[in-house]
């Protein structure tokens, strides 16, 4: 149940607080968004709160990467073993990868540019939007949350930063991916060996094809939690300003300038 009915007939809303998450328009650097799509197709879209597109692209990327062994080819290429890279790539699906990869980068860039325009219009229109939501399953409201705390939770285990910010569906998706990546890459096993000082065993135990997903995924979740929290706070401030202006500036108020008393 929202605290909001759409009787204001606004043209654009800059945010929506729903049971499962807070969706928000804000200014973004299109270049940064495009670079996150370079890291992992779909991440740019997730940063733009375009979740269905983002999930589709992320799932596709992992499917096709597993099919053609792109990550392994990357590991070989970075180490100058170009013949091994050639051999490990599976040509059957290889060309399927490229168009979708480029599309993800281009589309996230384009969408970021568009959403910036929409944001400016929505910001000037300054219409009211749903700021509170309570229902059988969840409660969501605007609040200030320290960005560093969201980032630290995400560093601990990706998805908790998102949960802290009440991006429930993104958190669920992120947690599922974290578990799959950790299980398949055996990263924690490698860290366990490292802690015991067994460097050789640690290198031997990880699976390169799966491990190579981890860096971009891990830093994405921290970055997402951090920036989302910053923007969430700005939204809170903006909404509270509007609330105060609408309700606590009664017309005809005269404030006499007295002198200070102790």
């Amino acid at each position, binding site marked *: 149940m929202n605290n909001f009915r759409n009787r204001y007939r606004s043209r654009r809303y800059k945010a929506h607080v729903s049971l499962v998450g807070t969706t928000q328009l804000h200014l973004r650097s299109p270049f940064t968004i495009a670079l996150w799509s370079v890291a992992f197709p779909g991440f740019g879209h997730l940063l733009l709160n375009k979740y269905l597109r983002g999930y589709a692209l992320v799932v596709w990327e992992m499917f096709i990467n597993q099919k053609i062994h792109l990550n392994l080819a990357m590991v070989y290429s970075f180490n100058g073993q170009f013949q091994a890279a050639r051999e490990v790539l599976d040509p059957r699906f290889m060309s399927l990868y490229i168009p979708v990869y480029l599309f993800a980068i281009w589309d996230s860039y384009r969408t970021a540019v568009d959403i910036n325009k929409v944001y400016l219009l929505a910001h000037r229109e300054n219409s009211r939007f749903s700021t509170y939501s309570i229902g059988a399953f969840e409660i969501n409201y605007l609040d200030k949350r320290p960005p560093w705390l969201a980032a630290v939770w995400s560093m601990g285990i990706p998805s908790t930063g998102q949960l802290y910010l009440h991006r429930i569906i993104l958190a669920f998706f992120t947690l599922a991916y974290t578990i799959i990546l950790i299980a398949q890459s055996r990263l924690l096993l490698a860290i366990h060996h490292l802690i015991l000082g067994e460097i050789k065993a640690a290198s031997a135990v990880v699976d390169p094809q799966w491990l190579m997903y981890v860096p971009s995924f891990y830093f994405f979740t921290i970055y997402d939690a951090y920036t989302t929290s910053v923007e969430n706070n700005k939204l809170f401030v903006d909404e509270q300003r509007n*609330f105060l202006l609408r309700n606590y500036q009664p017309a005809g108020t005269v404030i006499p300038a*007295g002198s200070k*008393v102790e």
Partner: protein
Amino acid sequence: MQIFATFEHSTFLEMAISELESKGIRGIYALPLDSRQGQARLIDSLHRADGTSFVDKGFILAFMFSTIGASKGFVWAWGPVIWGLIGAGTGFLLGVLINAAAFYLKNRKLKRRKIKGLKSEVILIVTCEEGQSVLAEDILWDHFALGMAKTK
């Protein structure tokens, strides 16, 4: 009698207002302030994510260097995890340094004082009877007013 108090934007501010109202104090006037702007600030830009943020480059370079480091780690002695972490740290620091350098070059000429700590974002002016002023003052302090003065 007037009480002038400044606050940060927070839920406590609304709690203060609603508590004043529940005690029958009705003369409440709120004035949200515009924040100091003009120049990009390295520290303040932490609170922005519109392309001027200085963590953007850090995180992007962290994932790039970490990916390359982890790849090289399959051949280099210390293994993929350690090299991945070294790459991440190097990338992040490099990104932050690039931004710090850009910030320094941009702001070399503009030397303005930075504002640290809590900022006054709202002025709240409560008009009430003299008998209620102590109560109102307590309510405002209890909800984290940053500063306050009474006038008569």
